[in-house]
């Protein structure tokens, strides 16, 4: 593991809605992600988890604060420039898999390379390799409708990592899966972080995911309220530094 920060968010504020309906979803969040680490972002519904994930993934822009991806600031970038940042540095895994129902497993992964302009035989081979890595070597030609939920999520994982991004962001990756498949996917994410030296952040409220985390960040009411890190040699994270950081300017 290298302790190099690949994604840094500083004092992130996000306001949603307008006028009387305006809501401050994030109230000054600081977070940085390093390579080789699986981080869980946990918190109750409405705590701002997904909003933070969207901002970290350059899908949403913050109302205030700064985000830096692999040393590149997102400040003032156009939607197309943010798309390029996502394309070059970030892989996404979604709660509902978001696979293309009309494309096979292999094609679903290939499209992630296609949008990056990587086509042809080499790209196809790379996709097959990645699908084999996630245990779907025998399901390449299957369409999402013919795959189980766990298999679909593994296709989504393959799609997220096929372009070798430094950051993988997962939104509730186990929420739609049964226990066995949930564990399989978390194991896969942990392997991606540790063996491929990527930074993986998973938003979740599923306690089954805890044993796989190197670090757990807790968010409540738009603020980071705690951070737990797994000590060396332990199987599960243990609270090592719980910092209640309710910001005064909430």
């Amino acid at each position: 593991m290298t302790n190099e920060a690949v994604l840094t968010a500083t004092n992130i504020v996000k306001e949603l809605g307008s006028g009387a309906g305006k809501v401050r979803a994030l109230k000054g969040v600081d977070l940085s992600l390093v390579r080789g680490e699986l981080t869980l972002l946990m918190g109750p519904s409405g705590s701002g988890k997904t909003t933070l994930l969207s901002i970290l993934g350059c899908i949403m822009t913050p109302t205030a604060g700064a985000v830096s991806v692999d040393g590149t600031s997102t400040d003032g970038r156009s939607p197309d420039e943010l798309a390029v940042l996502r394309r070059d540095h970030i892989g996404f895994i979604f709660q509902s898999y978001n696979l293309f129902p009309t494309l096979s497993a292999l094609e679903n992964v290939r499209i992630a390379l296609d949008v990056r302009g990587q086509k042809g035989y080499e790209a196809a081979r790379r996709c097959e390799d990645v699908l084999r890595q996630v245990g779907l070597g025998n399901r390449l030609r299957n369409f999402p409708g013919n795959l189980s939920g766990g298999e679909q999520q593994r296709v989504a994982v393959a799609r997220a990592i096929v372009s070798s991004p430094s950051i993988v962001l997962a939104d509730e990756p186990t929420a739609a899966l049964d226990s066995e498949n949930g564990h399989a996917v978390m194991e896969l994410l942990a392997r991606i972080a540790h063996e491929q030296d990527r930074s993986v952040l998973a938003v979740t409220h599923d306690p089954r995911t805890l044993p796989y985390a190197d670090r757990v960040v807790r968010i409540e009411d738009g603020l980071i309220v705690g951070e737990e890190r797994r000590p060396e040699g332990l199987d599960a994270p243990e609270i090592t530094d719980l910092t209640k950081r309710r910001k005064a300017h909430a």
Partner: protein
Amino acid sequence: MIFTLAFRNLFHDRVRLMVTLVGILFSIVLVAVQLGLYLGASRMITANIDHANADLWVMPFGAKSFEDGGLLMGARERHQALATPGVERVTPLIVRFSEWRKPAGGSTRVVVVGTDAEDGAVKPLSLDYGTWEDIKAPDAIAVDRTYLKDLGVEGVGGTAQIGPSRVKVRALTDGVRSFTQSPYVYTPLSRARQLVGVQGTDLATFHLVKAYDGVDIEEVRKELLSRLEGAEVLTTAEFRQRSLSQWLFRTGAGVALIGGALLGILVGTVIVAQTLYSSTKDHLNEFATLRALGSSSGYIHKVILTQAGLSAVIGYILGMLLALLVVLASQSTPLPIVMTPLLALGLFSVTLFMCAISAVSAIVKVTKIDPATVFSR
């Protein structure tokens, strides 16, 4: 992958695909028929002009078309034209509406075209039976097969009466239709004068002027105009345009045909736009996923445009097959539909354009996609 995704999106919902294809098919057939009729009508209107061996047409002032040449001109104009420098030959031509009395009773209007073929004027087009020599026989005329029934004769050897004279069908043309639906009756010049009631005169509806090779036609025209009072001198192209303008636009027929074609394009565009828009709406989450994966907006636009292009190609092939059947079926009618390679190519361009325009609403929709919606499912 763009093609694969577009193709699969298109064929994923078969019902919607059918609606799209029916829209394009309907549009293509309608446009093909309307423009084919327009082309067919244009050819009918100008066929005699196009087949005349003339550089310039001398006609009474205000002549509207080939069939409607107005007052007859005398020999004076012909002699003045012949005396004009640069003129090689001047051929008189009679074109007049006349009454055809059927042998079994009843009558119909015909257009008598009187010409001496050896003078190099208008020849009966596409003689299908008989020769020009046959038409020079006493009472002989040539008519088109298409109008035999309307004329009340069965074919060669059939007799009827035009004006005061008896005529006998000695030759037949094939495919020489008349836009006015009054059949052309081809006969030598002297008999034509007799049939239209100006026998024994040198009167003519038009004088067809042939200039010497290498002579400036415009100079000849200027000279002719200075010599001929009360007459107009038009080039073949101008006379062609005037005849087209008279029958297609002053009568409103051409406007109706072009209007029908535009309506076809409009209806097709609306149907394709509606189905493409609804398809895009259905796949919005997938497009948002593509955007979240980092695709450029151009990539997504290409998917939609490819979908539109595929619809266009499939719809065009089916539409053209049906249109060709309609064209084939119309060949024995008085107003045949014409399909040319250029028209087929034009229709393909129109179809592509129509589908590209139809994609605009879908592209606008997809441009507004918020990739954050991928987290709200």
